[in-house]
């Protein structure tokens, strides 16, 4: 099969608040193939969670389409829709809130197995044991009768992943899935998700504010950087972190503190013009990054909204200046 498995086609999502209408996501397109990994990265309010919820089919776009195997999901009905629901699973951020505290692990995993796989009794137990093994909760029999409060944050997150796997999903959307577990065990959870992607051909979308996590998880995939509702850059992970093309990604990478005293204390900074992120209620005209951007050109960047265009090396960037100069912003700003 060659076409994309799941695709956001020019989706936007607006919310009405007492203070006015905000566009949380504006004209975002993403297309994911089978067993691909992609990380959506951005700061709070950039629209990454809204994008993830639209991808998972939990939130209807205000405009644009969600396509699964080429067909519009929001046109689907009945069995067809149920099949999509099974195929795409969400793993939440907070493993303390996403598991029912009054149910044992067995009681959490059994209902979806019964409903979707018609596995009951001994077959269900065998299926649960194999799922718990798959997510690294061993010996599995010890976990079946436990309640969530008897597990650590990392173990709970593994249970959440096991629950997502009960229905053999083809896409997993993990929203900040490791940000609430201890630093010392994040990597093992990311490895678990990564192995699912490679061994079982699951397409994985990791939504995170942590670029280092995105770099590690997405090392064989792509990263999409979002800013104020738009995707400003989409590229292979290594080229994005080593040679970012958008001035915003460049500033982010230059500013990020690193767990290495020499590197972090000698990083070249990108001087931004303003520190405050504009309000979603009152977005700047043209490129939303232009008021802070050191490359911004009057008459262009404050007037025309840039759309994603291609730079050499298979990367896309929504920046007038980088596209015109045919060079990534990191080069133009001299921080390579």
């Amino acid at each position: 099969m060659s076409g994309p498995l799941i695709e956001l086609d020019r989706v936007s999502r607006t919310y009405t608040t007492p203070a006015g209408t905000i566009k949380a996501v504006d004209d975002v397109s993403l297309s994911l193939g089978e067993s691909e990994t992609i990380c959506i990265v951005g700061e709070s309010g950039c629209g990454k969670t809204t994008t993830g919820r639209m991808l998972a089919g939990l939130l209807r776009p205000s405009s644009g389409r969600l396509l699964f195997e080429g067909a519009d999901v929001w046109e689907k009905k009945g069995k067809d829709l149920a099949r999509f629901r099974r195929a795409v699973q969400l793993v939440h951020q907070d493993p303390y809130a996403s598991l029912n505290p009054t149910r044992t692990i067995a009681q959490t995993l059994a209902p979806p197995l019964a409903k979707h796989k018609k596995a009951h009794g001994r077959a269900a137990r065998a299926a649960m044991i194999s799922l718990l093994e798959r997510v690294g909760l061993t010996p599995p029999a010890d976990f079946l009768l436990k309640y969530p409060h008897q597990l650590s944050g990392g173990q709970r997150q593994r249970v959440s992943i096991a629950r997502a796997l009960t229905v053999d999903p083809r896409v997993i959307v993990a929203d900040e899935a490791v940000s609430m577990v201890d630093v010392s065990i994040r990597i093992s959870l990311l490895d678990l998700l990564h192995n699912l992607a490679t061994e079982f051909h699951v397409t994985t979308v990791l939504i995170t504010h942590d670029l280092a996590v995105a770099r590690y998880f997405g090392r064989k995939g792509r990263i999409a950087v979002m800013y104020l509702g738009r995707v400003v850059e989409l590229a292979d992970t290594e080229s994005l972190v080593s040679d970012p093309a958008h001035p915003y990604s460049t500033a982010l990478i230059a500013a990020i503190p690193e767990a290495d005293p020499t590197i972090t204390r000698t990083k070249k900074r990108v001087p931004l013009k303003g520190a405050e992120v504009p309000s979603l209620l009152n977005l700047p005209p043209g490129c939303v990054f232009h008021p802070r951007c050191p490359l911004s050109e009057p008459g262009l960047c404050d007037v025309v909204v840039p759309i994603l265009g291609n730079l050499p090396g298979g990367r896309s960037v929504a920046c007038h200046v980088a596209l015109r100069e045919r060079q990534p912003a990191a080069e133009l700003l001299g921080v390579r």
Partner: protein
Amino acid sequence: MPVLSVRDLSIDYRTRRGPVHAVRDVTFDLEQGETLAVIGESGSGKTTLAVGLIRLSPRSARVTKGEIRYDDGKRAFDVLSLDTERLRRFRWADCAMVFQAALSAFNPVITIWEQFLDTGRAHGMGDKHKVHDRTRELLDLVHLDPNRVLRAYPHELSGGMRQRVLIAMALLLDPRIIILDEPTTALDILTQRAIIDLLRELRGKLGFATIFISHDLSIAAELADRMLTMYAGRIVERATVEDLFYRPRHPYSVGLMRAVPRVSGALGSVASIPGSPPDLIRLPRGCSYYPRCPFHVDECLQQDPPLLRVDTPDHEAACIRWETVAAALGSDAEAPVAEKLA
């Protein structure tokens, strides 16, 4: 001469199952003007230690032994023997604490100016005009516009602005020590960067000593002069920031360093620490890290090892296998652990 000397500090929490030994025999010095970072997983005892230093621990906590000696050259005393009134003065005038800039760190129904005024009054600043002048000066210092911020309510400020306000408030009485508990957690990257730069600038201008509590190694890499690694309530390694990042000698420090990926440079061999921290009510026999440690030998079960001098006089690790750890890392070059183990 150290501004704070902690000796054999032990803090328990009372629970129904028995005492939780959250901090065990902690000994360290904080020198004038230096920045000390305390790292460790949640449950390692670092927050208990931090709030214990200013005796803000919850009621279920009890200091079972030890000494916390403060000495700024003019006055010297044991913090643990202060009465309520003197403790209150110590808490803001000598040693201030900055918490995470959550809304819960503020009184939600009064303005920022009133928060400053309350704090000043509670700590003996009777003159309203003096508090006002000092507040404006401090807000300038943390790069906030006093005219805008003083009249605002906490919810009207962004996370980064709230963190700046908390830092300014901590400086109200010009303390010699500032304790920061996860000062940049939950802030966006560019805001984090601004707060780190601000702390560096203030430290240079005002010369206070800092104790940092963070699970975020990158903040320690940015700001620390020296570091302590805590595990199961004990200090298991003490070193300069370079030694701890590039030449750690305790397997737990090695594990922590290796668990954090970087954005720049090679990824190296990143890996999590297997298992989870021990039950602090029933600690395992011998070294508490034994069950998770890839370097363990039978001898490690004989006793919880004391801090041993390694490499240099400024570097200690509580591990009898530290030479094997050093050999596994190979070179002493200034390269991260994940790269050396790749």
